[in-house]
């Protein structure tokens, strides 16, 4: 414990070799510049969960940490906070890797909810009014989807199509959804951007989400 080998930045310049059980996966520096596939990401997660594999963790760090930082920065976090929470999210990934089940969710969604909850918790602790008990668990709120296995399977199938469905939405509706995640005061911003009264923002949000669901159902029919 406490002995840190002098590992530098996540090794982007040397091959990453993952070995766990009888499965071995090798990725090269050239391969690292493209987007990893779901299978690669899930193999890295298994290696972290089952063998505390640091090269696999490095590969995940290299892909996700800059995206989490970028996501938080775009959502209004300053540089230092985005950096801190991105690292904290990756530490949570390392510690909780065994609880990730690729059949239930995509890793990007799992990491998104961890980063989101850490951000909420950070703001609550810094609001000055909060009197959080020692046993306060930042993961407990907001309630994440606790689904039965059947529901999960369906939800996971739907989840895989969300990225494409977002791309298929009319630009104005995609914008409503993006602002809902990225803007600190989404309603005011949506009203301003779309040039609509604040009172009609709610119905635009409903419309955008309804469209998204419709596209998801159509592509999975």
């Amino acid at each position: 414990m406490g002995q840190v080998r002098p590992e530098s930045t996540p090794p982007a310049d040397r091959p990453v070799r993952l070995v766990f059980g009888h499965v071995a996966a090798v990725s090269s520096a050239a391969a690292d510049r493209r987007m990893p596939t779901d299978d690669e990401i899930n193999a890295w997660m298994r290696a972290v969960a089952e063998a505390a594999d640091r090269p696999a963790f490095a590969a995940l760090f290299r892909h996700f940490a800059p995206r989490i930082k970028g996501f938080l920065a775009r959502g209004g976090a300053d540089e230092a906070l985005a950096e801190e929470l991105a690292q904290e999210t990756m530490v949570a990934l390392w510690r909780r890797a065994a609880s990730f089940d690729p059949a239930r969710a995509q890793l990007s969604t799992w990491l998104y909810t961890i980063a989101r909850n850490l951000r909420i918790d950070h703001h609550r602790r810094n609001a000055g009014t909060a009197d959080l008990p020692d046993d306060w668990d930042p993961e407990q709120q907001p309630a994440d989807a606790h689904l039965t296995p059947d529901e999960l399977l369906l939800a996971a199938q739907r989840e895989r199509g969300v990225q494409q469905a977002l791309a298929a939405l009319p630009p104005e509706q995609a914008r409503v959804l993006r602002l809902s995640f990225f803007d600190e005061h989404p309603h005011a911003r949506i009203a301003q951007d779309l040039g609509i009264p604040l009172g009609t923002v709610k119905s635009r949000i409903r419309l955008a989400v309804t469209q998204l669901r419709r596209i998801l159902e159509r592509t999975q029919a």
Partner: protein
Amino acid sequence: MIQHHPGDELLLPLAAGRLSAGQALVVSTHLEGCADCRARLHTLQALGGALLEEVEPTALEAGAWERTLQRIDRPAPVRVAAAVEPAAHPALPDGVRWPASLRGCRAGAWRWMGPGMRYARIVAPHDPAASLYLLRIGEGRSLPRHTHAGIELTQVLCGTFDDGRALFGPGDFDAADEAVHHQPVVQPGATCVCLAYVGARMRFDGRIASLIGGWIGM
């Protein structure tokens, strides 16, 4: 059978982490009993995952990787989750569970707010100023007719009320705003208990009701 659900204008901010703590607690309480809404939330959280994948990556500071390695080498802090039920909470009718979403919240005793009507203040440790209440209203009783300056969220834990717009039974959720002017009347058969978030003072029609509303902070 649940008839009334939170709209996407509430589920989307919940998924995005932008819903206020008080509102999030009432919506979460609904999710506990509603598989449909849990699946809807799941899809919206996947939207967060999709946006995470498409966002412009931002380089981490020099040394971020080494610092992360140091942190994972330290033992994880041991966290004992709070019990779902607080040590003491206002008694609920038989068969009604204390909402798991209220874990960690403090709950006051039942207090009188009118004939056959009681309320208990709920204090969320992460947002103590949020106006959260449990309301317990006897059969045939009604809240005074009122409207709202802001949003009012209600989750029915047991019993049924009719506010002239619709019937709301166990598991049902309602969001009312300044456009809604209603008088919830509890139906015969069972006491009604609701978890309510009051975004801004209710505006009661009657002078005495206004007085009581102001007195208990509703």
